């Protein structure tokens, strides 16, 4: 058992480790609260706060202009906040502090590398800036080049790289100093499907290796695939937060069962009304769409009804509710317009 005690005044963590169970305590790598940032009249970020535990991958899901970049710019100590507080690994972060910054690996949304330097030189420069000791820096650069798959191109100028390679180096610079918290700002925007997949895989690996990750995106598939918890952000406010399941349940979303039918769909619709779990049925030529609580439980019953009614089934598709539908429900608009 682990007991975490946080002394707020001193912003320090006291951790007591009980040897029997070395699991279960979530030491927060990031804690932020009350973040506000306005640009003139526009309030870009409005009272945003959340926390990320060690080893957790946390998603900020929201459309363009939601305030994702502004939020993480304040968390990284790049942008001065109007209000709020950020603690990373127990150290306060503002634009004037420098201590905690080494705990953060920041990967900007736009590719941020020097085109006239090689990948190795880019990494070396940022490595020095982050104070990586000289004897450690060389081997670490080789490691990172390996991880991002640029070992054989490390001595080429980055202006000769493809978009995907630049993206990977962009991430590599953030990983270089082995931060406790890696912040990735929409790392897959404008990337070919293959590079995108390799980026997603690396993030998954990082999450498994125990690094806390803050991942922003406007792709709900990415948030669903990568993140342990997701915050839905829109108009500078967090609208909801939780695991995928929690979010889906929060708004009472049901599974959708799509049946391809041979014969009278009308007859089937009549008969299915007897199944209490079914919330809504929509019939069309050759298909029936059923909204239901717990599709996996009810599906056998649905198929039974169809058989009794003498309706042939040509196909079954179960669609679980996704964050897209949650977003739609919460904000009345689509993630991507």
């Amino acid at each position: 058992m682990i007991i975490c005690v946080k002394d707020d005044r001193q912003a320090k963590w006291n951790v007591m480790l009980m040897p029997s169970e070395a699991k279960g305590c979530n030491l927060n790598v990031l804690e932020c609260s009350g973040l506000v940032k306005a640009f003139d009249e526009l309030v870009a970020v409005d009272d945003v706060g959340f926390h990320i535990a060690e080893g957790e991958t946390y998603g900020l899901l929201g459309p363009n202009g939601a305030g994702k970049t502004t939020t993480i710019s304040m968390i990284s100590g790049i942008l001065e906040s109007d209000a709020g507080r950020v603690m990373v690994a127990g150290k306060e972060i503002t634009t004037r502090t420098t201590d905690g910054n080494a705990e953060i690996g920041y990967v900007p949304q736009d590719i941020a590398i020097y085109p006239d330097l090689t990948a190795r030189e880019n990494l070396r420069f940022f490595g020095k800036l982050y104070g990586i000791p000289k004897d450690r820096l060389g081997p670490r650069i080789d490691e990172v080049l390996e991880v991002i798959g640029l070992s054989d191109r490390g001595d080429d100028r980055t202006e000769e790289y493809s978009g995907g390679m630049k993206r990977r180096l962009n991430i590599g610079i953030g990983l270089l100093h082995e931060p406790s918290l890696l912040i990735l700002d929409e790392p897959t925007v404008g990337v070919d499907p293959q590079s995108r997949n390799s980026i997603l895989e690396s993030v998954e690996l990082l999450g498994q290796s125990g690094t806390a990750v803050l991942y922003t995106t406007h792709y709900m598939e990415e948030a669903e695939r990568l993140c342990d918890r997701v915050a839905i952000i829109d108009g500078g406010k967090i609208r909801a937060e939780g695991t995928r399941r929690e979010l889906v349940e929060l708004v009472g979303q049901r599974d959708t069962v799509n049946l391809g039918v041979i014969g009278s769909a009308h007859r089937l619709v009549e008969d299915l009304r007897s199944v209490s779990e079914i919330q809504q049925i929509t019939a069309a030529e050759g298909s029936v769409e059923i909204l239901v609580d717990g599709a996996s439980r009810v599906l056998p019953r649905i198929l039974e009804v169809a058989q009794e009614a003498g309706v042939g089934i040509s196909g079954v598709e179960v669609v679980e509710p996704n964050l897209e539908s949650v977003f739609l429900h919460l904000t009345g608009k689509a993630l991507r317009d």
Partner: protein
Amino acid sequence: MRASFIIAAKDLSQRIRDKSAILLGFVAPLGLALIFAAIIPDTSSFSFQAQVAVIDNDGGEISATFIDEVLPAVQAEGLLEVEEYSSAAEATAAVEEGTLTAVYIFPQGFSDSLQSGGAATVEIVGNVDESISTQIAKAVLDSYLAEVDAVGVAVGTAMLSGGADVATITERTLESGAAVVLEDTAAENLELDATTFFSGGMAVFFLFFTVQFGVASLLEERHYGTLPRLLGAPINRWSVIGGKAVTSFVLGITSMVVLAIATTFLIGAEWGNPLGVFILMVSGVMAALGIMAMVAVVAKTPEQAANYQAIVAVALGMLGGTFFPLSQGPRILAFFSKLTPHAWFLQGLGDLSGGRGLEAVIAPSLAMLAFFVVTIAIASRWRGEVLAP
């Protein structure tokens, strides 16, 4: 501090790699200085002729000898032109206006005082904008007085005995004093001065382009998107600015020092007292840094900044007299040129090259540092925006 140097080292390696800094900081100024030195070989096209006047309140033997014998002899060599002015006030006003280079004012009782073994002073009022011509005028008087001093007793004796050997003194003045100095100044120094002038002029003209690299690289960091990375790094954010300043400073000083050495050996430029020259260079780099920073904060993109900076660098360079000596242009230009660091730099250099000591760089250096202070103060009004991600 450490971070500033890491950033500067990165910037410098980028600049060396793209060769633009080497081109603008060294190749171009040296090339132009060589070309100018080659196409303007004889100094006669540069008339460093001094217009002088004498106000003789003394009316004694010594002043009379200077006026009647020495000056005409020097005038015959084509270095001086003597003009008539009736009062000291009128002549001094003419010097201030710039129509006259210098005026000698012999005080009342000058000759008597000297002849009776006492001390006396001749006042010389010179135009600071024409330091070389003024130096010539002063040199003529100096060597005459030195000669009078050397044969002081003889003069006194000869005068008293009524058989003043004025001709001998004049002759010896020309031979041993003024003649030597004049030969120096006229035949060699002036020629070298044209060379030094172009070397210094090109060095300070291109300095503004060299310094610009450091300043513009801050905008470049934003353009590349690397500025947020620098701001997010565990370093004080002012060390980003510091790094850019170090880059500019190193590029500027290196370019000037290399140019001074190269022109000294290649075309025989005489920069003068090395410490004085270095002080002028440091002040010049600071002034250029401030002006270029002020121009850059107004710009939104690296391209825009480069354009603005080029316009400012050329305009100030022209006005500051880096392409032709200000003494050759209209008077009004000489006045407005003092609104440029270039003119101050060249004035300091001219004085050093003319043989003046370290004190000659005090005023020009302070003037250039004033440019730095004022422009940095203006630029820092935008400091929030400069370091916004």
